[in-house]
C-alpha cells in the first residue's frame, strides 16, 4: 500500500511539471540589484574651552565636542553692575556643510520680590524683571581662539551679529537671533573637519565695542544697570541651529522657525 501511495504522488508531480512546461514562453529578464538612496545627515556638535567671569577663568566649565545635553553656557547667581564674562564655544559640522545661527529662546524674566532699592527706582508693579534688558551680549568669530576681539589685520575676526560688521551689542531682551554663518554673512558655512571658534562676551550694564582697533576693545560700564534689576532673575535657552547648505542658497537665520518642544 505504501508503494502505491508514493507512486501516486509522483504522477501528480510529473503532471505539474508538464503544465509548467506549456507556458514556458521565451523570455528575458534584466535585473539591477542594490539600487540605493541614502540620506545624509546634518549633525551639529559643540565644544567649549570654558568661560570666564570678571576676568577669572571658571574651572570645570569646559566640555568636549558633543550634542548639548545638560551643559549651560551661563550660570551666574549674584550679578552686579559692571560684571562681565566670556564664553568660548566651537561649532563642528559632523557630516555635511551647514549654516549656523544662534537663538535666545524661552526667555523668562522674573521680578522675584521687589526689594526696597527697586521700589525707590520706580520698579513697583511690573510682573517681569528687568535683568534681560540690562545684560548685553556681543559675539564674534574668534579665529585664533585667544578670546580677544581682533577685527583688523591679521586676524580680521568678524562680528557674528544680526546687524552686520559694525554691530553694537544687543541686550538679551532684544535678541531673537544672531547670524553666525548664513548665506548673507559672507564668511562661509560650517564645513566638516573645520572647527569654527566663537566667543560670546556679556556685560551687566552698557557694553562698548570698538571695531577699528586691532586689539580687543570690549568694555563694560555698569552704570547702565540700575537698582531696578536687584534680585531679578533671567533664564533662557541658547539655541544653536544648523541647516544644510545644499539646495539652500538663500538661507537666512531670520527665516528660521525653531522646532517646537526643543529639549532643554
Amino acid at each position, binding site marked *: 500500500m505504501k508503494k502505491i501511495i508514493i507512486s501516486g504522488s509522483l504522477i501528480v508531480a510529473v503532471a505539474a511539471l508538464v503544465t509548467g512546461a506549456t*507556458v514556458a*514562453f*521565451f*523570455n*528575458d*529578464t*534584466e*535585473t*539591477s*540589484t*542594490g*539600487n*540605493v*538612496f*541614502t*540620506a*545624509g*545627515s*546634518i*549633525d*551639529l*556638535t559643540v565644544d567649549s574651552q570654558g568661560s570666564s567671569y570678571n576676568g577669572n577663568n571658571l574651572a570645570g566649565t569646559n566640555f568636549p565636542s558633543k*550634542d548639548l545635553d545638560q551643559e549651560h553656557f551661563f550660570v551666574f547667581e549674584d550679578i552686579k553692575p559692571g560684571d562681565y564674562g566670556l564664553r568660548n564655544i566651537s561649532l563642528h559640522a559632523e*557630516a*555635511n556643510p551647514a549654516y549656523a545661527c544662534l537663538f535666545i529662546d524661552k526667555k523668562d524674566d522674573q521680578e522675584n520680590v521687589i526689594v526696597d532699592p527697586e521700589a525707590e527706582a520706580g520698579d513697583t508693579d511690573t510682573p517681569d524683571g528687568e535683568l534681560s534688558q540690562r545684560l548685553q551680549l556681543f559675539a564674534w568669530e574668534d579665529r585664533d581662539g585667544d578670546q580677544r576681539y581682533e577685527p583688523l589685520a591679521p586676524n580680521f575676526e568678524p562680528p557674528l551679529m544680526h546687524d552686520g560688521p559694525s554691530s553694537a551689542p544687543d541686550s538679551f531682551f532684544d535678541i531673537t537671533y544672531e547670524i553666525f554663518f548664513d548665506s548673507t554673512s559672507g564668511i562661509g558655512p560650517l564645513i566638516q573637519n573645520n572647527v569654527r571658534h566663537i566667543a560670546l562676551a556679556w556685560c551687566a550694564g552698557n557694553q562698548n565695542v570698538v571695531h577699528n582697533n586691532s586689539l580687543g576693545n570690549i568694555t563694560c560700564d555698569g552704570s547702565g544697570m540700575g537698582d531696578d534689576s536687584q534680585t531679578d532673575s533671567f533664564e533662557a535657552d541658547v539655541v544653536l541651529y544648523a541647516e*544644510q547648505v*545644499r*539646495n*539652500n542658497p538663500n538661507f537666512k537665520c531670520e527665516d528660521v522657525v525653531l*522646532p517646537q*518642544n*526643543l*529639549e532643554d
Partner: protein
Amino acid sequence: MVAAVAVVVVGATTAFFSDTETSTGNTFTAGAIDLKIDFDGYFNKRADRVPNAGSWDEQDLVAGMKFFNFTDLKPGDFGEGTISLHVYDNDAWGRMLIEGVVDSGNTCVDPETEASADADCIGRPVGTPEADGELRENLKFSACLDWGGTPGFQNILANGTSNTAFHDQEEGDNICQTNEPMVITEGTIDQNGETHEFWPALAALWIQNCTDFNVAGANNYGECQGIAQDGRLVGSTTYYLAVNWNLPYATGNEAQSDTLQSTIKFQAVQHRNNPSQTF
C-alpha cells in the same frame, strides 16, 4: 533493406516524364527574446547630455549595475535616470518590477533622536539601531515615456544606428517635456514592491495618438513606431523610460542617515502565442 532495393529497381524500369521540386535545408530555428538596456543618469542638474549619475551603453545587466546609487541625499535633491529598453527582432510583452525593498534607518543620528516623526529614534541614545527608516516615505518617484515631440520611438533603427531620415530632438533627452506621457504618477515606493506592466499604458497611448497607424506598431521608424494597439513592445524598437525622483524640501530630520534600497527588474516575454501575458 531488400524490399527497399526492389522498389527502386521497379521505378527505374518505367521512364515516365517527370519533374522534381526540392526544398532543401528546411530548418526550424528558435527566435530570441533578448532584452538589452542602456542608461543615463543625472543628479541635481537638468539633463544636458553629460550624465553625472551613471551611464552605460546597451547591454545585458550584470551584478553591480545600479540605476540609482546615492549616499548623501538632502532635502531639495533631485535626479533623473533614462532607462532605454530594446527587444531585438521579436515583439514582446514588457514589465518593470521593483522588488526587495529595504527601508532601513541604519542608526539614529542626533537630530533623529529629537524628531517626533521618528518613532524608533525619538528619546533614544545616538547610535541606537533604527530598523524602520523614513527615507522611503519621503522619496518621490515618477516616470514618463521620453518619446519626444512625435508619438512613438523613431530615433534608433533596427540595426542600432541613428535614424537620419527622421530624428526627434526631444526623444530620449532625459527630460519629461509637457507633451510626453506620464506613465507612473508621482509617489513613494511601496514597501512590498511594485509591478508596472507596460502594455496597458502603451495600448492607451495607441488609442490616444496612433489609431491612424499600424495596429502592430511597425511604422518604418516614422510616427507611432513602437506603439501598438495591444501595447506590446515592438521588436527592434528603442523605448525610453525617464524616471524622475526628488527628496522634497518638506522632508524632516527623521529621514537623516536613512536608506532606501531595492532591486529593479525589467522583463520581456514573447508576444506571439501568448495573448494573456504569461511571464
